[in-house]
């Protein structure tokens, strides 16, 4: 396992890395077990990387540490070559629970990151509206979140993150709270937007299929302590076809990921949807 990782570090060190995490550890108290230990990961420019793991393996903690919402106990996080401590505007997060402000309209929500940056109201509304169009919600600008479906709310969440034009997009099980059909629609939309904008994405999920469908590379995590068990390159060609689940590469990858999660994580809480 370690050879694979070191191999990866070497092969990728030549490319421009958007995110480089080394030896990330998180422990909440002196007497408690570490949530994360010695976690290494990197995202190259334009790369889509998923962290796949069972509930409680620390994948969300890892993502929140990268976002700067949680302070790591050890290790370094470098975003775009600079050491990153705390939140910054070169990364943006999409949350599992959408987390829109109920008192703001959709376009005001989408403009929130720009508002924090002090962009004038006129300018930020214009830019947010562009991203609302990108996620297909031009006709919902003045709706409040409570008037939108879950799928629409998460599109606003995505527009809000994209509107600040981050170097790195962080997504914490963004489609986990949606029904299966809406989830597939949003996955398709995300792939299109990534291709169009050349986004670099770190994506957390517990769904093997989702990870395979979206990613260039998948890190499979195990729990106690949270660490990377193995890294897979997804060799499925892009654009991924309608019947991508029928391709041999997919079947093989799915088998490997499943076995890893099943054995190493004790086979509990692993979603195969």
């Amino acid at each position: 396992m370690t050879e694979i990782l070191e191999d990866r570090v070497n092969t990728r060190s030549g490319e421009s890395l958007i995110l480089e995490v080394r030896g990330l550890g998180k422990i909440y108290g002196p007497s408690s077990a570490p949530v994360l230990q010695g976690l290494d990961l990197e995202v190259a420019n334009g790369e889509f990387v998923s962290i796949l793991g069972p509930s409680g393996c620390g994948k969300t903690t890892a993502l929140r540490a990268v976002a700067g919402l949680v302070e790591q106990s050890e290790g370094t996080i470098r975003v775009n070559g600079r050491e990153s401590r705390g939140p910054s505007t070169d990364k943006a997060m999409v949350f599992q629970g959408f987390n829109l402000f109920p008192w703001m309209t959709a376009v005001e929500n989408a403009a929130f990151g720009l508002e924090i940056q002090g962009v004038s109201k006129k300018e930020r509304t214009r830019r947010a509206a562009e991203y609302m169009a990108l996620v297909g919600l031009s006709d919902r600008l003045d709706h409040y979140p409570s008037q939108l479906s879950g799928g629409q709310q998460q599109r606003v969440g995505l527009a809000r993150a994209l509107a600040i034009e981050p170097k790195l997009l962080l997504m914490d099980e963004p489609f986990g709270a949606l029904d299966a059909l809406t989830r597939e629609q949003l996955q398709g939309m995300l792939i299109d937007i990534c291709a169009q904008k050349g986004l670099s994405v770190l994506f957390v999920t517990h769904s093997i299929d989702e990870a395979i469908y979206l990613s260039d590379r998948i890190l499979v995590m195990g729990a106690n302590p949270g660490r990377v068990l193995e890294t897979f390159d997804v060799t499925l060609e892009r654009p991924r076809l309608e019947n991508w689940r029928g391709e041999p590469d997919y079947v093989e990858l799915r088998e490997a990921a499943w076995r890893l999660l099943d054995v190493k994580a004790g086979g509990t809480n692993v979603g195969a949807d």
Partner: protein
Amino acid sequence: MSAPIDETSPLGVASASSEGIRSTVVRFVKNKWTLRVLSLIAVIALWEYFGRIDPLKASYPTQFLSLLVEDFVPRILPAAGETFGPLGMGFAIASVAGILIGVLMAANKSVDVALSPYIVAIYATPRIALLPVLILWLGVGFDVRLAIVILSAIFPVILNTYLGCKEVNSSLVDVGRSFNANRWTISTKIVLRSSMPYAIAGIRVGFGRGLIGIIIAEILTAGAGLGNLINDDARYYDIGAMFSVIIVLGAAALIFTAALQYVELRLAQPWRRRRTRPQKEVGA
């Protein structure tokens, strides 16, 4: 009603149309405005009837309503100014200071620990009990009325704002943090904004408390204001005049409370302002 009678089932048609009349009547009777108007008429009629039995100790609607019209400009309006002046001012001070203290307590653990015992203790004590000593300190004029309004109104505002800030969804705070917002921005744009409906509800309660406080102060100090009028009228057995004052007081309180309730609702559910209806997601 004039439906052609079907030869084959005349009974069926007849019962259907009487059914229609009945349901219209039921709908009319059960309409909340019908009920309100009917109950108002009943209350006024009963009051009018029983009020006339002992005119010295009671009054009746036709009497005090005509007195209200007669007295409004010369007598009630100046007194209302004396009451609502300090009430409005004290209420404004209590609202602003209450929100500030509530936010500070929620934001800072030390402030919370230091202040909360006093606030809880004073909130639980009837503030009216302080009135005699306030009169001793501040006299019987404007100051004592302002003081009792602030003391009565501020605690519900503090406690509600505090509670609202504590109840803020931490995921929303995460959004602010993830966009690198500073503490001040998070406190005002997220924490304070999402606790506003709570704060306004506190202000609404505070207004009611403040009104009680000032009327009692006016009755006790016999200085000025609507409370003083009520007290005077009752002592001179002028019950009709007394009720005309109470009606004004009640109406003013009702209007103000309704206005606050409206603000509260708009802050909590801003989408109600617009005529847009929720729509189902269409396509991808």
